């Protein structure tokens, strides 16, 4: 086959201008790879995580109940509205890994291992059912602890008694919070084993699947209320909490589904933005190619080329760029998807079945990589090939540019500046269309870069609020409630503990003026002079005393009940008790979810839970936060002392553990966002590099003239580099302006997705400064190579340049 000369010309032009071609190819490839990576990863996560989650028959509702036996589950299951109900127990303990290191472990007890009704785990190896003195380990826990089937593992209960259990099997459970995320391993034991380990053999959680309306959140909560009112409470048990599993998930959805969805959406938006930047770069480069080849276009016209043939040639050129770009982008996107899915799988503990490239993603990539560049390039191609032969051959080149505009004239009058600087400034504004495209690319990249940093700082604000809010050193949960006096007395006996506060909590609703009920909220009873939290009050004041029937609500509650104002009197209902309270303050968000605070005395009287608390919070020194090791020590002593006192404690946690988990999670999110920001910066950098290269190439003759009249190499380099820096600075100013709204949008979306809370934006001036440094570096680096090549040419060659 003989390649026609016109196609040969295009291929040779691509090969002959390797840097420029690579620039366009990489620009397209970055966007296409990002789109492929995000969309494919999203698809694989949805396929493998969500399907795995759905396949195990997820519980739709969890009811935390005071200790009960399996007959209660049977009674609830017999309700017409309930399809199945399963009793569960989770006990906090410690487990020794293969390296002898102790880690927290949640020991799960399922009502009937022979007939698991919901949240079914998948056996991986060994037995699927733990016999007495055996434990099954969740796969990720087994991996991270270095334990295998057949190993004998030491488990230490809160009372410090140790038991050796045989690892009978490894199972994969997508329903529990992963070890890597929570820092707590998951094991499964039988009730007999728990009994043998000195624990009372009872269940404390009811998992429920409703009969109808499995997707109807309100209906499911309503069924929970019915179970409580008709079965559980009449049977003498108390309900601590009724909840849909997960963090704001809808019924039946993975516990982090809304976060995953939101996060993927953010990444998709960023990948689309990268595509837009790529498109801008393609337009810019193709315009430059055409502008550079105007004379050649004239020659081709003079030897018989019709416009449609020229259009075909340049479309072929862009097609070639696109094809080469997708050849790079598709495998890179697939690798990226692999990385992202692997990262998500280790983070969310699900099994990745296969990393593949579906036709849908492939078509999106091909469409974006090939059709998009051709589509956007048609604009410059159509206008570039419209030129007449005469204009192309005789009017293009030195002196063919339009008259100086206002900006150029202004620079011309700046006598104070060095000639090189004035020339560089004027050069910057010579190709206004190209300048605009370059500025758009770099501005968007800058705005997103700063937005990522602002998101980071805004997240830090939220984290700091949590950090500020938590003033306790350690906290011990007391499932089912204990005597307030007893637990506070016991806690204060620990050496070094100076403050001990018992907190009670119940679930209640707000009775609105229109006789409707709100959703269920947590009502917390705590000493009005609490020292274990330091809530930031957005409005009003903190609780002033006992017996005043005052409450403080938090912002999370206002999200759901926006009509509540400071000074309002609202009626709360707990069980069958109703009482009006005055809203005296609104506390900021601190990741606790909707919450109502009241003084413990008022709580006691209102809830009827006399002298009962559900957790104890302690502080060593009220004037300072203790070190993490002290916090750990106190937590350990709390567990030990309460166990010895037969107070049957749950798990203890510390301030630093709580804070650390949050920051770890956010760091991962930020790493991914920064990767995307860097990608945008790369595309922006490629844009400026391309522009500078083209500007210098177009001015080759002019540079020759400059050198012929005595300009030194240094001066020529200076002119080019200053121009690059000026473009960078301009984009930085514009990016800085745009970074306000972009920060607001990105930080808002990320915080809403990850924390399900509103935004308190903290604009990142550090990010703006870092972007300034980057953009200046891009300006210098992108112009150095063209500047060097401009000074390498001999004056004669340059003046002969056609």
């Amino acid at each position, binding site marked *: 086959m003989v390649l026609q000369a016109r196609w*040969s010309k295009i291929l040779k032009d691509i090969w002959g201008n390797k840097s420029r071609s690579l620039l366009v190819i990489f620009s397209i490839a970055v966007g296409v790879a990002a789109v492929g990576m995000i969309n494919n990863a999203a698809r694989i996560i949805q396929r493998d995580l969500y399907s795995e989650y759905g396949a195990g028959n997820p519980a739709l509702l969890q009811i935390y109940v005071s200790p009960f036996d399996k007959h209660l589950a049977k009674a609830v299951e017999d309700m017409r509205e309930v399809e199945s109900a399963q009793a569960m127990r989770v006990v906090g303990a410690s487990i020794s890994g293969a390296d002898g290191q102790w880690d927290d472990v949640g020991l799960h007890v399922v009502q009937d291992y022979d007939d698991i009704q919901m949240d079914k785990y998948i056996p991986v190896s060994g037995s699927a059912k733990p016999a007495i003195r055996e434990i099954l380990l969740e796969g990720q826990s087994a991996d991270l602890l270095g334990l295998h089937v057949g190993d004998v593992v030491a488990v230490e209960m809160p009372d410090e008694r140790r038991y050796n259990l045989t690892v009978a099997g490894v199972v994969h459970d997508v329903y529990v919070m992963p070890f890597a995320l929570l820092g707590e391993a998951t094991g499964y034991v039988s009730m007999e084993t728990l009994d043998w380990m000195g624990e009372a053999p009872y269940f404390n959680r009811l998992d429920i699947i409703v009969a109808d309306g499995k997707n109807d959140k309100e209906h499911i909560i309503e069924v929970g209320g019915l179970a409580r009112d008709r079965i559980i409470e009449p049977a003498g048990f108390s309900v601590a909490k009724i909840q849909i599993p997960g963090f704001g998930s809808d019924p039946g959805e993975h516990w982090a589904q809304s976060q995953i969805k939101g996060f993927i959406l953010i990444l998709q938006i960023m990948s689309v933005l990268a595509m837009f930047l790529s498109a801008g770069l393609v337009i810019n480069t193709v315009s430059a190619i055409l502008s550079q080849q105007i004379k050649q276009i004239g020659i081709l016209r003079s030897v*018989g080329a019709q416009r449609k043939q020229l259009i075909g040639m340049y479309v072929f050129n862009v097609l070639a760029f696109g094809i080469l770009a997708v050849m790079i982008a598709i495998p890179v996107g697939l690798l990226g998807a692999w990385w992202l899915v692997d990262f998500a799988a280790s983070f969310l503990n699900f099994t990745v079945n296969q990393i593949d490239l579906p036709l849908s993603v492939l078509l999106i990539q091909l469409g974006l990589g090939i059709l998009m560049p051709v589509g956007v390039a048609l604009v410059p191609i159509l206008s570039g090939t419209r030129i007449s032969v005469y204009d192309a051959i005789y009017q293009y080149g030195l002196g063919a540019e339009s008259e100086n505009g206002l900006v150029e004239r202004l620079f011309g009058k700046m006598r104070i500046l060095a000639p090189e600087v004035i020339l560089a400034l004027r050069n910057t504004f010579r190709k206004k269309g190209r300048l605009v495209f370059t500025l758009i690319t770099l501005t968007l990249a800058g705005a997103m870069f700063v937005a990522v940093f602002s998101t980071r700082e805004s997240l830090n604000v939220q984290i700091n609020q949590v950090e500020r809010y938590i003033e306790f050193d350690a906290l011990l949960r007391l499932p089912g409630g204990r005597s307030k006096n007893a637990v506070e007395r016991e806690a204060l006996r620990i050496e070094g503990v100076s403050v001990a506060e018992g907190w009670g909590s119940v679930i209640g609703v707000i009775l609105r003026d229109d006789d409707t009920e709100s959703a269920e909220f947590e009502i917390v009873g705590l000493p009005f002079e609490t020292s274990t939290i330091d809530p930031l009050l957005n409005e009003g004041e903190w609780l002033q005393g006992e017996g005043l029937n005052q409450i403080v609500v938090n912002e999370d509650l206002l999200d759901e009940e926006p009509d509540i104002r400071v000074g309002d009197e609202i009626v709360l209902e707990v069980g069958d008790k109703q009482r009006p309270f005055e809203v005296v303050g609104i506390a900021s968000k601190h990741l606790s979810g909707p919450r109502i605070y009241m003084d413990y005395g008022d709580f006691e009287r209102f809830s009827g839970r006399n002298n009962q608390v559900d957790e104890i919070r302690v502080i060593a020194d009220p004037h300072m936060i203790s070190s993490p090791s002290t916090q750990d020590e106190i937590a350990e002593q709390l567990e030990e002392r309460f166990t010895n006192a037969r107070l049957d404690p749950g798990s203890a946690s510390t301030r630093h553990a709580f804070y650390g988990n949050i920051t770890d999670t956010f760091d991962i999110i930020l790493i991914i966002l920064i990767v995307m920001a860097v990608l945008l910066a790369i595309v922006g950098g490629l844009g400026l590099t391309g522009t500078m290269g083209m500007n210098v190439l177009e001015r080759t003759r002019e540079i020759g003239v400059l050198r012929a009249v005595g300009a030194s190499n240094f001066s020529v380099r200076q002119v080019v580099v200053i121009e690059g820096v000026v473009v960078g600075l301009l984009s930085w100013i514009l990016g800085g302006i745009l970074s306000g709204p972009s920060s607001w949008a990105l930080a808002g979306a990320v915080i809403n997705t990850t924390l399900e809370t509103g935004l308190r934006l903290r604009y990142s001036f550090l990010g703006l400064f870092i972007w300034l440094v980057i953009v200046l570096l891009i300006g210098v680096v992108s112009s150095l190579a063209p500047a060097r090549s401009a000074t390498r040419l001999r004056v004669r060659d340059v003046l002969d340049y056609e």
Partner: protein
Amino acid sequence: MLGNCMSKVMELRRKEGESHTVPSNGKHKAHDNGRMIELRDVYKLYKTKSGDFPALKGIDLNIEQGEFVAVIGKSGAGKSTLVNLITGIDVPSSGEIIVDGFPVHNQNEDQKARWRGLNLGVVFQFFQLLPSLNLIENITIPMDFCSTYPSKERKARALHLLDQVGIAEHAYKIPSKISGGQQQRVAIARAMANDPGIIVADEPTGNLDSRTAGEIFELFSSFVDQGKTLLVVSHNKDIGPLATRVIEIADGEILNGNQKKISALEI
């Protein structure tokens, strides 16, 4: 093989329009009135900041088939403008330009490009070769655009033309690897690619030394022997003896009318 190609060219030209008269021997024939190039009261005004500048003022010119016409004149006289109007590269402000029966003055850019590709060879002062293509490809590109010769035969024709202009040994080099004179030979070979009846050259030796310029003029003369019509703009006095007619232009007007052959001394 070349004979077959010629038939193809003729067939294509026949399709180009009724105004083209292609004899059976493949040679171009002057239009019915015997004129190959005809300009009637052609004006060209250029708009400048200081007002309209008349580059050509009411030019009337007839060139017959097989003529070798040299256009001379001082810089800015309007020589290049005249050539650009005849080739359709530029458009007249008024008047009519008929080339081989084709009304150049009222055609759009695409029609003129197609017509030029098939019927006219243009040679520029600065050669205007495509820098990324080798010499063969530079010559085959007009054939490619006009689909004149079968793809497989284009290379052979390009080599044949390179041989005619005496640089076949450089066929696979790119333009920057050969001398200016050699580049102009390639430009001439390219102008001959589709075997046009008319060759128009604008200062073809303006960038060459006198010896090389002489060789280029000799080459042009050989085309006249093949029945081509030549219009060459030049400062070079050596063209006079070779041309069948010399036209002198000054201030946008033809001074010596349609004067036949003049001596070198008169240039």
